């Protein structure tokens, strides 16, 4: 059974979190993400969950990580300035392999920017905002329905991979109202739990899929967690062998399993002359532009990324191989464009807007024509 609701993106993200099993939210108010905190504060107690407003975003993500280790699915929501503050602890969650979800409602500009206006400027912050080598999962919904679906997916991936997952929405989708179909129950993934003798349990010994199974604090299986390089028993180590193996595993446990992540969607002819690559709010304009291009008899296809990180390189290169033109449409100065070019599509062009206005289908059509 499903029921139809008329929701804002922020509401859909919150309902999705709770549907996916989240019972803990820690946050700090910030536009345009605040409604997620407000709705969590209202709803979580009804599910025996907890909402806590922390003293800043550093503490918010810290509390989320702590709660996840205590056995609750946990999330936070923020926007640019808060997302910057969270970076050190997001890296900790990567290193310590703590499932959690961070919803980053992107707003415009560096620093305080314009709090109420949209942007897609945090693509690289999501990828490289925390220091040193790591892999990260980031999803980008393009509709209110997808705010729901991909937030559920984010929780499932966090549990599956034992890693933080970032949901990148933006100020427009966050406050857009659309009809969403909310199923009575959603498919949820629970983290793999240890079994067998308690004495031999090693909290960071990887299972076959490279992800260690995880108890809670309070279980008989003893959980040793540190952000220092650690051995499989969870004790800190400065051994080069241990360090190298750990960092490789943290990356491989995600990068070797990308077929489990939401695939891009492709809409268009089999061998498009022009390929538009886009995501989030901008992808809606791209899809609309492609529909009009079709009416005009032009050959235009749209790749809409749902997973931004890890970058779905193969999917994109496969479709772009035969294309004459590739246009990356995004509300930043070409952050994903760099990735597309790095994937070998060196002739890709960017269609970018960084003045708070969302990109319109006409601009994309014109951009396509100019290239033709």
């Amino acid at each position, binding site marked *: 059974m499903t029921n139809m609701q008329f929701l804002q993106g922020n509401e859909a993200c919150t309902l999705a979190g709770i549907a996916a099993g989240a*019972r*803990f939210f*820690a946050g700090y108010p910030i536009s345009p993400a605040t409604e997620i905190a407000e709705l969590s504060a209202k709803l979580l*107690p009804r599910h025996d969950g*907890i909402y*806590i407003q*922390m*003293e*800043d975003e*550093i*503490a*918010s993500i*810290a*509390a*989320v*990580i*702590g*709660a*996840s*280790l*205590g*056995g*609750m699915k*946990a999330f936070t929501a923020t926007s640019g300035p808060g997302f910057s503050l969270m970076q*050190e*602890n997001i890296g*900790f969650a990567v290193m*310590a392999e703590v499932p959690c979800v961070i919803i980053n409602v992107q707003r415009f500009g560096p620093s305080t920017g314009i709090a109420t206006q949209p942007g897609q400027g945090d693509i690289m912050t999501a990828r490289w905002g925390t220091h040193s080598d790591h892999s990260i999962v980031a999803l980008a919904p393009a509709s209110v329905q997808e705010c729901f679906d991909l937030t559920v997916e984010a929780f499932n991936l966090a549990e599956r991979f034992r890693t933080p997952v970032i949901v990148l929405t933006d100020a427009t989708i966050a406050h857009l109202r659309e009809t969403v179909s909310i199923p009575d129950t959603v498919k949820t993934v629970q983290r793999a739990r240890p079994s067998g003798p308690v004495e031999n349990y090693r909290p960071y010994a990887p299972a076959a899929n490279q992800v260690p199974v995880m108890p*809670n*604090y*309070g*279980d*008989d299986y*003893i*959980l*040793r*967690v*540190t*952000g*220092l390089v650690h051995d499989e028993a*969870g*004790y*800190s180590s400065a051994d080069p062998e241990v360090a190298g193996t750990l960092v490789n595993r943290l990356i491989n446990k995600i990068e070797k399993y990308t077929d489990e992540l939401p695939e891009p969607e492709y809409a268009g002819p089999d061998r498009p002359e022009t390929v538009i690559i886009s995501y989030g709010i901008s992808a809606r304009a791209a899809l609309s532009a492609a529909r009009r291009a079709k009416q005009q008899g032009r050959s235009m296809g749209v790749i809409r990324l749902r997973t931004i990180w890890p970058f779905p390189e193969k999917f994109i290169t496969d479709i772009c191989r035969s294309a004459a033109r590739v246009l990356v449409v995004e509300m930043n100065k070409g952050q994903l464009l760099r990735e597309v070019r790095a994937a070998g599509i060196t002739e890709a062009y960017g269609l970018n807007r960084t003045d708070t206005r969302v990109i319109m289908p006409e601009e994309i059509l014109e951009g396509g024509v100019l290239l033709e």
Partner: protein
Amino acid sequence: MNNLKEIDQYLAHKKLPHMWCPGCGNGVILKHLLLGLAVLGIPREKAVLASGIGCSGRAGDYVNFHRFQGTHGRTLAFATGIHLSNPELTVVCLMGDGDCGAIGLNHLLHAARRNINITAIVANNLNYGMTGGQYSPSTPEDSLTSTSRQGKTGAALDLCRLAAEAGANYVARSTVYHVREMHKYILEALNTRGFSMVELLTPCPTYYGRYNKIGDAVQMLEMFKEKAIPLNKFQNMEESEQQNHFWRGVLVRKNNPDFYTRYRQKEAVQ
């Protein structure tokens, strides 16, 4: 009370000897923290030691029960999540004075304000040990450190008074020299529902002791014996005299309901 047998169950024997310098007070603090758990009969599975980043934070490597070590300064914020998700756990945070009083001070104030049911133990060695003896907020004025060769500018911060003012249920301070008192305070803190804090002055002979020509660990303990005086005596001192002393004693003992209890009560009313 000094029976090492009692703390056996909590120690990761394979990981010993520890990495702390000879004469460092961190081992003594860890021992009494574990003794506290033992005396209260807290089973291994129901205790979490959350430690900071610093010399004292390494304590986590020497225990064989649930252990957490997050990022520098954020221990209390992480621990807030651990506690709220699993309120039956005994969560003990062990932090250095830099960790808790500089980068993490905000979290100390708010953990105390919320009266979160956590015990914080602050190992105050009067400087940053791990990074080589720089001054911290609790370094006494005029002390020599690697970043204050002419003497530290600015008075020492009293973390206990801040925590008390912010709303902690239990706040006490002692030193590694005053072992019995330290033991008692740790027990009282662990027995407190709500936020409890014990600050322990502890020798760092390698840096603070050496820079300030106090001497070895024994002489540092002598200094604590002499300069750490009971709270009521301290309060009757002139301010100028206070600056050359540390107080010890129990600053606050209250029984206000903790955050989790109040939060759940509110919901029941809804």
